[in-house]
């Protein structure tokens, strides 16, 4: 059994919107083992990014709070840390790559000025030392002419190069955990292939754990060891990557895979999940996916399903309830066909 580097237990995040309170994260639990790549898949608005912000302690102070649950990083509860304590952690032990390389770099500072910040803060390096370190890191992520590039501004770089700069920024202090929030979504396929290749190579070199947030199942298939599928602020399925692709259990995961164009005949109507992700305020009792589910049972509307686990394959769906299946085997089948 490998060591857990990050463990999230029943995390609930609450946002205040005027007098209304919404919970975009409703009881999320998962863990990341040391040295593994965990993929987090889900559609926009399902809470992937909010979860990662909660881990980094970057949730906006005034409008949001962690309502319950805890985030354990090396057995230290992150949800109770003060700002000052967080600063020591961020960029040092945990670092993050953001989605848009275009907007996440400051346009008025040179690459070098931005990259030396974590080194000066966390490692107390001298300026010349930091510069050397940055140049070697830039070369490591495959950027050409690093000595000149360090004095250039972000607008002088292409999207792929900026994302490489972001990756080198995240790697500078050799973090134990890297969170990559849609690192390749804004990039072209050929550049995406380069960046994924780079991330794989860097991971193989160091003992880093990677939490890869994405909506692209292809990226997951390529990169991850284990996958967490999120829907409407909950974890609906968690499995080894091969298990998940071979036998997805939750109807949502099945729907996601079937709706990929490459899994459908050309020009045919694509399989699609009807409707859209409910807003956090619209979710009442029962299973959050019930209104879009093709196999919906009466029970789904009334009761929230617990997590059923079979051989490390977790799924939050009443169809997985073995006791239920034994009693009403025929009925389940009947509904599934309909």
């Amino acid at each position: 059994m490998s060591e857990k580097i990050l463990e999230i237990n029943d995390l609930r995040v609450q946002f205040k919107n005027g007098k209304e309170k919404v919970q975009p994260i409703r009881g999320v639990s998962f863990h990341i083992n040391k040295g593994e790549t965990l993929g987090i898949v889900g559609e926009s608005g399902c809470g992937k990014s909010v979860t990662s912000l909660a881990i980094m302690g970057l949730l906006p102070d005034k409008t949001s709070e962690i309502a319950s649950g805890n985030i354990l990083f090396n057995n230290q509860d992150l949800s109770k840390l003060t700002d000052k304590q967080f600063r020591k952690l961020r960029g040092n032990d945990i670092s993050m790559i953001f989605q848009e390389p275009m907007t996440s770099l400051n346009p008025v500072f040179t690459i070098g000025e931005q990259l030396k910040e974590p080194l000066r803060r966390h490692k107390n390096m001298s300026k010349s030392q930091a510069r050397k370190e940055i140049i070697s890191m830039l070369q490591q992520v495959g950027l050409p002419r690093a000595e000149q590039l360090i004095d250039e501004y972000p607008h002088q770089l292409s999207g792929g190069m900026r994302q490489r700069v972001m990756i080198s920024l995240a790697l500078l202090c050799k973090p134990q955990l890297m969170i990559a929030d849609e690192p390749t979504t804004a990039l072209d396929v050929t550049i995406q292939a380069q960046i994924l290749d780079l991330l794989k190579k860097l991971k193989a070199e160091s003992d880093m754990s990677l939490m890869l947030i994405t909506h692209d199942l292809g990226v997951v298939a390529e990169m991850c060891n284990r996958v967490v599928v999120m829907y409407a602020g909950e974890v609906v399925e968690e499995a080894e990557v091969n298990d998940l692709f071979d036998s997805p259990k939750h109807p949502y995961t099945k729907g996601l895979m079937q709706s990929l164009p490459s899994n459908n005949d050309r020009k045919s109507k694509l399989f699609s999940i009807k409707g859209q992700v409910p807003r956090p305020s619209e979710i009442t009792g029962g299973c959050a996916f019930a209104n879009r589910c093709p196999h919906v049972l009466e029970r789904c509307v009334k009761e929230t399903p617990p997590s059923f686990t079979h051989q490390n394959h977790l799924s939050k769906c009443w169809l997985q309830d073995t006791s239920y299946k034994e009693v009403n085997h025929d009925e389940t089948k009947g509904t599934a066909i309909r």
Partner: protein
Amino acid sequence: MKQKVLLSVNNLKKYYDIPQGLFKEKIIVKAVDDISFTITKGETFALVGESGCGKSTTGRTILKLTEPTGGRIIFDGNDIAALPYKKMRTLRNRMQMVFQDPYASLNPKKTVREILTEPLRVHKKFDHDTRLKKVKSMLEIVGLSEYHLDRYPHEFSGGQRQRIGIARAVILQPDFIIADEPVSALDVSVQSQVINLMLELQKEFELTYLFISHDLSVIQHMTDRVAVMYLGKIVEIAKTEDLFTNPKHPYTKALLSAVPITHPKEKKERIILKGDVPSPANPPSGCTFHPRCPAALDICKTQAPKTSEHGNSHSVSCHLYNKIEEEIPHAISHS
């Protein structure tokens, strides 16, 4: 002849000048450099390529949102490049566009009701009540509901905004729609809904699409013919099946191999291209792809390749194919 040509683009060029100061020579960026293709009525024609290769500029130039520098665009008998502004404006109710960036393409000061009635109002279609009915049914079709009518764009997610953009283009029921990356901002499950919607609308109204995208799996699914663009030039045109089963240009091969796998057990031989797309302001000499090409020959550095036909309306611009057919398999075996 059964198929009627709806749009034909001949030697289209779009150059941008970058002034370097009063007495210095301007730098000319050849965003679109001498491309030609035809689109027949009812088909879906795709433009693929990486960002900066000129596919969006092509789309915008066809709609005359930017003036072409040279060449002719003939839409149903009208030469768009020579058409005066007013005539072009009325013609636009037959050709509409879905834009790439749902954040920038909707007016933040207008409600959804205003955004969707505007095209009907501008083209003087229907009276007030019918317009509202149209807008409501359109919202329903694109997967939004009536209570969204009086909301502003910032209240929607990126995906929902793109659907408003699609609704705005389809509401006039045009013949021809230029869809500039319409689904790249959408989630997989929503993406499939929108693709289905586009396919349905195409059947119903005999729409013709120019589908601009970088997502090859979407292109493989929904288009009839594909043109691959690189640095302002079309390097390969083929029927979609032919292109995906038998890509000829080395760039097309690399592009196809870069598509992520669909199953973790799938092994894929990947051609990873080095470097980025060069700047169109300073393109490489000869074949513009040669610095990244795994099969570059000496001739590629100096001479731009000619386009050669390979049957079944498959044409390629590459020196590898200007020689005898038999040499081909050896010349481009994967490195």
